[in-house]
């Protein structure tokens, strides 16, 4: 309509808000990472080093803790191709592998030795496994890189160093594989998203988008990225306290949230997951809760 200015609505449709601060069942202390299984069960890890499993409405199903947490807590969750949960045990420089029941598969643990050598890790942020069984593990600290490991956990290749040039990283905080085998990386402290084609070795950079800022399309500490099946990409921004929706090429489509404690607002969100019904489950980290939204 002539003369009208389209308003950018930040408030999403909030379907459900659940979780309170605490250490009891169904309570959180800064829920940071989430993984969702085909049955839409949410696996959530918080700063008590507990992994709690919920249905999509937030009903507690089960939970367990990682073996050690004195140094710090896990900050990333992913899946292997068998449906086992990959836990980025950040401060112990390793990736733990759990069955969905919470049974630890100790012989499948990746890393565990701190360092910059191949196969060693510093702060592990996330891990995924592709269809061929290769693991991709992101880390920062001594060196900001992604390592590719064989299904047996042997080092295959690595790419990335600390920096802001394309292909370099500054805290690659989250990894996600899309249906075409592209690896999406939330390059948090460079405030951008990078996409790599993993069919090549080392993987080839195919997309870089995002710049620091708080306007639509800009990013500030993107901590998680989720390439959905419909070609939509969701990004959780720690620094802007919001979720953004992009096209695959990085064109902004919508913004949801903003700083605050009301439903539909976020406080330094770390992670997100999209379920089979298209709803987005956001780890509203510093509000110690989970919000299920659509926008």
């Amino acid at each position, binding site marked *: 309509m002539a003369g009208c200015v389209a308003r950018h609505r930040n408030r999403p449709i909030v379907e459900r808000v659940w979780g309170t601060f605490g250490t009891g069942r169904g309570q959180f202390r800064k829920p940071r990472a989430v993984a969702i299984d085909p049955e839409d069960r949410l696996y959530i890890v918080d700063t008590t080093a507990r992994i709690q499993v919920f249905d999509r409405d937030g009903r507690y199903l089960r939970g367990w803790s990682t073996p050690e947490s004195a*140094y710090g807590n896990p900050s990333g969750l992913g899946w292997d191709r068998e449906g086992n949960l990959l836990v980025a045990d950040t401060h*112990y420089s390793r990736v733990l592998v759990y069955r969905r029941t919470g049974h630890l598969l100790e012989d499948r643990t990746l890393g565990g030795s701190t360092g910059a050598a191949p196969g060693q890790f510093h*702060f592990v942020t996330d891990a995924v496994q592709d269809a061929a069984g290769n693991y991709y593990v992101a880390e920062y600290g001594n060196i900001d890189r992604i390592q590719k490991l064989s299904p047996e956990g042997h080092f295959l290749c690595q790419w990335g160093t600390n920096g802001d040039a394309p292909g370099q990283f500054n805290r690659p905080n989250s990894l996600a594989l899309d249906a075409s085998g592209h690896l999406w990386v939330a390059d948090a402290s460079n405030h951008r998203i990078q996409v790599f084609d993993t069919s090549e070795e080392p993987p080839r950079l195919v997309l870089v988008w995002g710049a620091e800022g708080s306007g639509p399309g800009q990013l500030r*500490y993107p901590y998680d990225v989720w390439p959905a099946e419909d070609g939509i990409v969701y990004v959780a921004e720690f620094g802007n306290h919001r979720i953004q929706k992009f096209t695959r090429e990085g064109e902004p489509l919508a913004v949801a949230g903003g*700083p605050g404690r009301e439903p539909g607002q976020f406080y330094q969100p770390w992670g997100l997951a999209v379920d089979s019904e298209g709803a987005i489950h956001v780890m509203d980290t510093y509000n110690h809760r989970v919000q299920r939204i659509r926008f």
Partner: protein
Amino acid sequence: MAGWEFVFGRPWCLWLLGALVALWLMSYRSLAGLGRWRRLAALLLRSLVFLALVLALAEIQFRQSSPKLTVIYLLDQSESIPAAKRAAMVDYVVREVAAHRHAQRGDRAGVIVFGREPLVEVPPLADDIPLLGQIETGRHLRRDATDLAAALKMAQASFPQDSAKRIVLISDGNENIGNARMVGALLADQGIGVDVIPIEIGAAREVAVEKLVLPSNLRQGQPLELRVVLDNFGDQPAAGTLTIKRRIGTSESLLSESQVTVRPGKNVFTVREPRIDITGVFTYSATFTPTSSEEDRILANNTAQGFSYVRGKGRALLIEDWSHRGEFDFLVNRLRSNEIEVDVMGSDELYTSLAELQQYDVVILANCPRTSGESADKITNFSDEQIAMLVQNVEHLGCGLVVLGGPQSYGAGGWSNTELEKALPVDCQIRNAKVNAVGALAMVMHASEIPEGNYWQKVVAVEALKALGPMDYCGVIEWSNFGGEKWLWGGQQGMLPVGPNRRMMLSRIDRMTPGDMPDFAPGLQMALLSLKKTNAAMKHMIVISDGDPTPPSSSLLQGFVQAGIPISTVAVAAHGPAEQAVLQNIAMITGGNFYSVTNPRALPKIFQREARRVAKPVIFERENIPVQVVMDHSSHGLTGASVPPISGFVLTTVKDNPLVEVPIRADAPQPSENTALLATWTYGLGRVAAWTSDAGNRWAASWTGWDQYDRFFTQLVRWAMRPSDTGGKFDVTTEYRDGKVRVVVTALSSEDRFLNLDRLTASVLTPDAQSSSLELQQVSPGRYVGEFTAEAAGNYFVTILTGAEEIEENGRKQLRMRAPILSGVTVPYSSEYNDRQTNRALLEFLAQLKPKGGEPGLLVEPALEPGQTSVLLQKYDSFRATLAPAVSIHDMWPWMLMVASVLFLVDVAVRRVHPDFGWVRRMANRWGWAKSRAEERTEELKQRLDRLRATKQAAEQQLDDRRRAVRYAPDLGGAEEPPPEFPEVERAAPPPAQPSATPRTAQESYTERLLKAKQQARRQLPRKDGS
């Protein structure tokens, strides 16, 4: 069961209701015109208005009684009760509430624990008492006394209003503060019942060391006799070991150890020291250790302490930095060779009590920083308490203080804004912009992950700020939770001078809530830019973090290196070695220090030390700085001497106080207010000297070969020493009884005459280093008495100021201050340990009180014993209903008035207002549900109007036809009645005729005549009605 009823404050007003009949009679006739139903409604409403007014006048009240019962348990947790019995109380209460509380009745239970003061452990709740395991408030509870009255008062204040109230007191009844009988009577008057479960404590045998008697003042070389008084409260002898220890300074030695048998009653044992050659304060302790634990129930009262001052020629304590030991050995040797006893203490083994300082007449703080050490586990500092002791030793006990300079002293030693600075004749800070002594400190705060992280961040920021001078710059960067990295003050620049902004900075620090910073780089970048722009001689940065933000790039760190800004990093104990590596790397590259902290209590020391780095500009170093002796009479021996130059000193600011003297200055730099080399004054009772250069190891190296060196420093130290001549004979006795210390002074002149002084005051220092003044009243010639409360166990130092005396010197009379008299008393142990048996009389009194409207309480038997709570549970029910139910009364008359007002308006409306319900139809039309009906009505109206128009047209046509057919004859009477065949149509009155200026003519038209006839007819119409 809960019940309710209405009651009246003035029931006789209800007789006014009889007037209702008259109201009905009068109103029935006058309301006849309203129709049947409206008249009945109006009558009813009037009656209700009248009824409400009468009820309001009668002060109608709503009264409700509740069957609920609230029981508050008072648990005596004082030291007089053995720990096992104190624990048994908690266990019993938990079980009692679970067994007897009537949940369906809404009973509540609460717990208050008490000792010296009461604390609410569990507020009254309609729930069982949670199984706590131990008393939550226990660590805050002071158990060294029993205030039963305060506990009863707190229970009284804690009861909810809507229930009956009962207190269950579990205690031995041995109160030593307050008066429980008086409070108990008040409780009974308020209907609060008191049940008592006694605790028996009198069965066991008990031996206590009552006191250690020794003279408070001795001369060097005199013998000492100690007498230990032991009290055996049992009826059989008790065997054990009596150990007497002597402590001087930090060294402790065994004086005697012997097997003794303590007979029932008081026993006195005497021990002698043949001769004491060392001067200072000797602290003695006597401890009785029973052979068998069965012979002595309480061990806490088995030790008594006492102290004695042994005075000599003069004794000094020199405190030096432990990381630079031996720096003042030359000075120490010269003082010793001049007959001054000197003890040297490292700053890592500092005194812990004021008693340790009492043996010295002067304390020398020699180039000693407030904080020293290189790593978090080795870093040591003067705590606030230790600084306070040092200052109180001067201010209240008259000890001297000499501060010697060096690169780690005064402002460069981090002494700015401390209590010590207040005692010095100079300020450690430079307030002069002309002096290039400016530092800049930026801090990055990221310690939110550690327990109480925000608290510790505030503490360290304040500590760092304290160490900065007014000309220094300070900035703090935090991750603002909703706004990213930002400076805490100063906008984009962030670095502001501390002097004019200190208050604002403290306020912002107090409000800051740093969040979880994801990346070091933006914060460090901000700091680098601002520090570069800041005009400061020394720039420094501190980062406190758990180390998991994204590390900064090497190029950014190189920026700090090139700007000469070191970054010290503090790794707090949130994470492991990986994070430490990040922070270690930052410190290593930029030349800062790295600290790994596992205990947050180490953080303030680290920040004090790091903030001291920016204070280096207060040091002035140059070759051959001339020394000026400004004042002759107090330059401590330098008069007329040729003083060698020095090569450095610490810049300070002389206090603007007339008591301050600056006898020696440096000749550079300008201005002179910052160049004091020696400044002196008297602070409280003690003398303080500030020497801002060193004693020869670096800046005053040329002084060590100077022939006046000994004279200068010896006289400086002797000047500051506590005077030793009291100018008379003062006999002081102190006595502790019933929580109070009584001080008696007998004053004689040197001629043995009674001294009648204008006033005699004393300064009292408690075991927790709190000072207070004490006024001694003269009760007879030469006899003065004062008293103060001594609640806590420990040493109480009493310094008596004897004022000035007139002396004659060189033929001239002048006043001279007498030396203060040092005395004191030791309170051996809490009065709780004096209680040997249960105070049954008090417990029975409380239990027998009859609460208003209820039955007296119970003194429950048997007494509570560990492991036997089940017996009590069967016999006793604290939730029994023997108290008057709680009644709550609510005034209703305001509501009655409101009801009357509203009903009156309704009454008026019924009589005066004809309601129009057409709006209902209009609303219905608007909402569409009656749309079709409205359309039908519209059509019907339209048709009716059409018919009316047609009828009207026909009538007009007929009238015209008649007018044309009938010749008009003026007949005024015919105009009075319209033709019967035409309906009377009401028309608008024509406008009044304007008075015409034209005279009426005979040739009026037909229309004019017709109009005139009509007007005349209308004027006559009223007359026809006869009105």
